[in-house]
């Protein structure tokens, strides 16, 4: 029995860019399916390399697609997500009528916000995860979290939405700022009056404000649903149904990142499963030829560096379980390669 045999229904694979999150997520999915759990692997990776590794093609962009694999176990599904599609789907699902829906989808502010707003990708990942979890079709769901320089945006996204909805900003934004002739009603902005209006106008111009106001007005009926789900998602991510898998590299430069993640997960009350130390070079056999000018000195350096990193991580992480994955001769690019990762988890 290893950790993965006892894994709960949601696995969230986190870590900084380039450490191999997608590969570990796909490997975990394969392992869970082989063990007889119907599993969905979801990724937000914009380079969509999961589609090649699992051989599902671009069809998985909209709906989960079954991974064609031989061998025992339950079906494995893959789904490639993008923020815009998910946001549009949400708007369509929760709009009460077609006029509201079209008003939001056609809004210039929404158009830019849906793709560009910092944190929206992360929030959409959580949102979609929750949607799929609620549908209950899969016994296990593995989420490959979005690559981001500040990967904890992902965890904070639901909280930010709740904070935003609870803040006065929304109430202010939702007041009818503009009268019937499209002129700004300065008196509607409490406490600041003309000052803020003048400031905002000087800063960005009235047109943007009008777009924003339109957007929030149209969005108002949707917000209750958003707020409620954001709270539910927060609860789910901290529950026994969820486990976080932290992926890192063994080199020293990665260690502060990994510790930062582990600490933030613990502080936030999120259940951390194992820390996967990926691409660990083996120790160099025999005496390292430090003075040699060929590649052997680099091999020896890599081996020593990685062993040192693994030891440091283990001691710094204390009781947290670590799983060491060796540097493979070839990066897994298909199911056969993935099996190499999967069986070592």
């Amino acid at each position, binding site marked *: 029995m290893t950790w993965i045999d006892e894994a709960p229904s949601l696995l969230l694979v986190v870590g900084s860019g*380039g450490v191999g999150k997608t590969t570990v997520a796909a490997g975990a999915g394969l392992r869970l399916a082989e063990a007889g759990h119907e599993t969905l692997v979801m990724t937000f990776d914009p380079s969509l390399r999961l589609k090649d590794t699992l051989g599902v093609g671009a069809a998985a962009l909209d709906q989960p697609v079954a991974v064609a694999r031989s061998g025992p176990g339950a079906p494995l599904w893959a789904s490639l997500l993008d923020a815009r599609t998910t946001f549009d789907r949400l708007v369509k699902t929760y709009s009460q009528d077609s006029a509201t829906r079209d008003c939001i989808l056609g809004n*210039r502010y929404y158009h830019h916000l849906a793709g560009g707003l910092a944190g929206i990708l992360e929030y959409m990942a959580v949102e979609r995860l929750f949607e799929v979890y609620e549908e209950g079709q899969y016994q296990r769901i593995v989420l490959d979290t979005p690559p981001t*320089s500040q990967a904890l945006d992902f965890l904070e996204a639901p909280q930010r939405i709740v904070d*935003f909805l609870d803040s006065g900003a929304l109430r202010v934004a939702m007041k009818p700022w503009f009268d019937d002739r499209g002129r700004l009603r300065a008196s509607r902005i409490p406490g*600041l009056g003309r000052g803020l209006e003048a400031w905002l106008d000087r800063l*960005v111009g009235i047109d943007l404000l009008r777009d924003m106001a339109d957007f929030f007005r149209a969005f108002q009926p949707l917000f209750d649903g958003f707020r409620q789900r954001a709270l539910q998602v927060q609860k789910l991510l901290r529950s026994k149904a969820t486990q976080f898998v932290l992926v890192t590299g063994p080199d020293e430069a990665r260690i502060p990142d990994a510790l930062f993640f582990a600490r933030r997960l613990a502080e936030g009350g999120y259940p951390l499963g194992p820390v996967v130390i990926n691409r660990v070079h083996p120790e160099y*056999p025999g005496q390292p030829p430090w003075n*040699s000018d060929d590649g052997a000195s680099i091999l020896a350096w890599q081996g020593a560096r990685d062993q040192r990193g693994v030891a440091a991580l283990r001691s710094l992480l204390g009781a947290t379980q670590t799983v060491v994955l060796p540097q493979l001769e070839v990066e897994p690019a298909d199911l056969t390669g993935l099996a190499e990762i999967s069986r070592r988890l």
Partner: protein
Amino acid sequence: MLRQRTRVYTAPRHDSIPLAPTIITTMAPRSSHLRSLRRLGLILVTGKGGVGKTTVSTALARRLAEDGARVLLLEMDPRESAHRLLGLPPSGGEVLECGEGLYFQNLQPRRVIDRLVRERIRIGPIVRKVQASPIYEHFVAGCPGLEELVILGAALEQLEPPHARTTPFQVVVLDAPATGHGLALLAAPRLVSEVIEQGPFGRLAGELATFIGNPERCGVVAVTHAQDLAVQETLELCRSLEAEHGRRAELIVANGLYPALTSDASSSSPTARIWSQRRAANLQALERLAAAPAPVLQLPLLPIDDGPRLAAELARAL
């Protein structure tokens, strides 16, 4: 264990580092790449996560400074890491001098936004109230492109200072985020200037769109590993640059190349097998990379821990 990285840089051991043999023979001489980079004002360094963007940015800034330019290395990630490669303590947002002609700053966008509001929006006492209001919070967090604009604006300000008493930088090397967000950075001025047509931000967006769009002033350096996925992302980056921005990367840096393994002592060991597979993958990837519409510069994998010595050796290899 985590070691302190504050040691002083000492002269490189010139003969100890094996450089990768030149695999692509069509490569132009190295110095010409640097010349073409030096004539630019802003160099935006992007690429896949984990390929060494910060390391290459630092080495590049260092090299350009060594060649006589006044260079600012700008780091955007608020969790600082470039300072380690310069042998400095974290900058905390200040501009630090770190050698002849080389300066470093960790740009903290939120601080810059607040400063811009103070400086440009002269409403006096109301500013503090504005900044404390939830609308301001929402605006700053919710205005797509604002942060990008502010970062590019800060870079432009260093190249073309508004006050005559400030010495301009000749080159700003911007350690940008990974491919997707890096492209967003490049696109932001145009997008924002479409949405915001007036006001200081509208004007700033317009100015920046012109500046970014000028290939004589602003260039992109794509960092990659010579490895399948990274090369694929680099080629996609080149395609997006061409399709969405009508431009090419100035330079592609293939970082961390495995040199030839000449020692035959342990050719059958697992380490040597990993080595030869990685090296074969490197060669294959470099062949694919040759199709990219930009010159490819190779940087070797060096057996040096993260720190000033690594940046110095790579600067030399550029």
